[in-house]
Structure formats: C-alpha cells, structure tokens
C-alpha cells in the first residue's frame, strides 16, 4: 500500500489534470482502502472547485469615468451635432430670405395690399385682446403667489445655462 505522502503528491497532480492512467489506478485503489486519504481528497476537490466560484468584487460605480477622465478621453455627446444642425438651418433660412426672389415677390405683394393687411392686423389685435380678457384673471391670480415668478426666473435660468452648455460642447468638439 502506498504511503500518505506519495498519495498526496498524486492527488495534487490529479487536481492539475496531469496524472497518467497508472497513477489514476493507484489513486483510486488507495482511496478505496484509506478513509483518511479519501476525506482529504474530497475536501481538497470541494475547496478548489469552490474557489472557482467565489464571488467577484467590483470597484465603485464611477470607476470607468475616473479612468477615462484621467486618460483625457472625452465622452462623445450628440449636442455638438445638434447645435451644428440648428446653426446650419438658421443660416440657410437667412440666406434664403436675403437672396431668394420669392422674398421680393412676397414683400411687393404685401406692400400693394396694405389695406387688406391692416384689416387682417385689426382682426389679429381683436383676437388677442379677447384672449387677453379671457386669460388675464388667471394670470393675475397666478402672479399673486411667488411660485409663478420663481418658476419664470427658473425657466430663464434653464434656457441660459442650456445655451451655455451647447456653446461649451461646441467648443470642446472643435478643439
């Protein structure tokens, strides 16, 4: 019968998957006769298998951002593209209004039909006044509480900062 030290060496070799057929026979024979070695083998197999399944730990949630920031890799943002598209559309419209013959025709027509235009303007003013009469009680009521004024100021600030953010993004992408 093999001594414990020798079987231990073979068990370790088996865990590495390097045993020969003869060695496999030797191990199995010894394990079937020695309860002590059998227990040792089973525990070792259980532990090494369990190590493969130990949990994976993770660094903090902003780890990727910190690494990319340190490396100076910028996050790609859709805003510069959106801002460029808007600017392009505005410029296009402006050029069209300035140089298109259609503008001239429309202006000419508008000048020749001033009475009709004035009539239309009166109608619009009347509609707006009626709307004002209808809305004013609500507006007055709303402005009695500071919440509306705060909301208004807040909206102006949001528009202002949104504009600044767009400008910054456009600057970043161009650099």
């Amino acid at each position: 019968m093999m001594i414990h030290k020798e079987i231990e060496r073979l068990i370790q070799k088996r865990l590495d998957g390097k045993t020969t057929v003869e060695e496999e026979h030797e191990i199995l024979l010894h394990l079937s006769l020695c309860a002590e070695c059998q227990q040792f083998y089973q525990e070792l197999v259980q532990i090494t298998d369990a190590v493969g399944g130990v949990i994976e730990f993770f660094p903090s949630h902003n780890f990727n951002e910190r690494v990319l920031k340190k490396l100076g890799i910028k996050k790609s943002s859709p805003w510069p593209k959106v801002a460029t598209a808007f600017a392009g559309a505005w410029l296009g419209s402006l050029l069209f209004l300035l140089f298109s013959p259609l503008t001239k025709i429309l202006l000419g027509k508008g000048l020749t039909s001033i009475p009709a235009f004035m009539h239309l303007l009166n109608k619009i003013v009347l509609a707006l006044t009626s709307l004002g009469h209808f809305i004013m009680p609500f507006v007055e009521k709303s402005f009695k509480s500071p919440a509306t004024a705060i909301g208004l100021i807040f909206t102006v600030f949001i528009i202002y900062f949104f504009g600044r953010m767009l400008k910054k993004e456009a600057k970043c992408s161009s650099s």
Partner: protein
Amino acid sequence: MKNGIEIDAQLILSALNGDEDAYQKILNIYKGRIFSYVYRIVRNYHDAEDITFDTFIRSFKSLKSFDTAKPFSIWLFTIAHNLVIDFLRKNKQNYEYLDESHSTNNDFVKEYEKKRKLEKIEQALTKLPPIDCELVILYHKEGHSYDEISEILKIPVSTIKIRLHRARKKLRELVHGETFF
C-alpha cells in the same frame, strides 16, 4: 485560460484610435477580475481600487507596446501583480510571509460576504499568505495555466507547482480546521 472572456485585437486597435466605447468594453470585461484579484491580496477596498485604477491607467498608456498575439489578461495581471508588490513593500508587508492575522474585514466585505455561501472559503483565502492567495486565485479562479502564472509572477513553474500544492493544503486546513499527514 479556461475562465473569463478575452478581448480581440480589433478592440485594442479601436482603443488605440481613441474610441471611448472600446475603453469602456475593456474596463467592463476586466475591472471586476482585476479588482477581485487585487482585493484578495491587499485586503482593503480603497487600496484595491487605487491599485486597480493604476493598473488600467498604466496599461492604457502603454497600450501601443502590447503584443496582440498574447492574451490581454496576462498583460493586465502582470501589471496588477507588480503594483501589488510595490504596495506591499511600501506598507512594509512581507510578500512571502505576511502576518496571517492581518485582515481588514471592512464593513463592505462583511455585508457582501454574509450573503454568500462561500464565506468560509473567502475567510480562508484572507488568511493565506499573499503569494499563496495569488496562486490559488490565478489558477483556480482565473484559470491560468502554470506557464501563464509563471509569466505573470516571474517565478519558475516548478516553484509555482510546489507553492500551489502547499497553498491548497493550507486552504483545506483553514476551512476544515484539521491537519492530515
């Protein structure tokens, strides 16, 4: 390599071209594996995160010198291992024979590990000397071969074999609390 996925050369090339998505993919694939490996040796969450951070920064900065014919994980683990050794030296901890009673067991780990069935193994791993823990993790958790571990740790294969066999035995003793032979 039997465990974990490996990235392809194309992803490395994309990262070299400054593609942010490529960096994100590499980080997502490896950050957990590197962090777990480092954490189990240094046994402190914040130190482990710092070392993992430095590992990625160092590897990304020298990405051009990476040989794409080799697995990326071996390269990363080599850098992480070197940083761990530097850390242990700076903190005057002996890499070969670290005081076995040293364990930080911070709240994060306590909370996390209580929910797991493998608490005993996890505790036993913290009691192993760093090099033994490193070998057990690289071989049984990461699935690296003896040759790959030899490349990462710069230790001969024969030494790795002897130490791993000893580490397994020690781990079994720590879990079951008895000594055979």
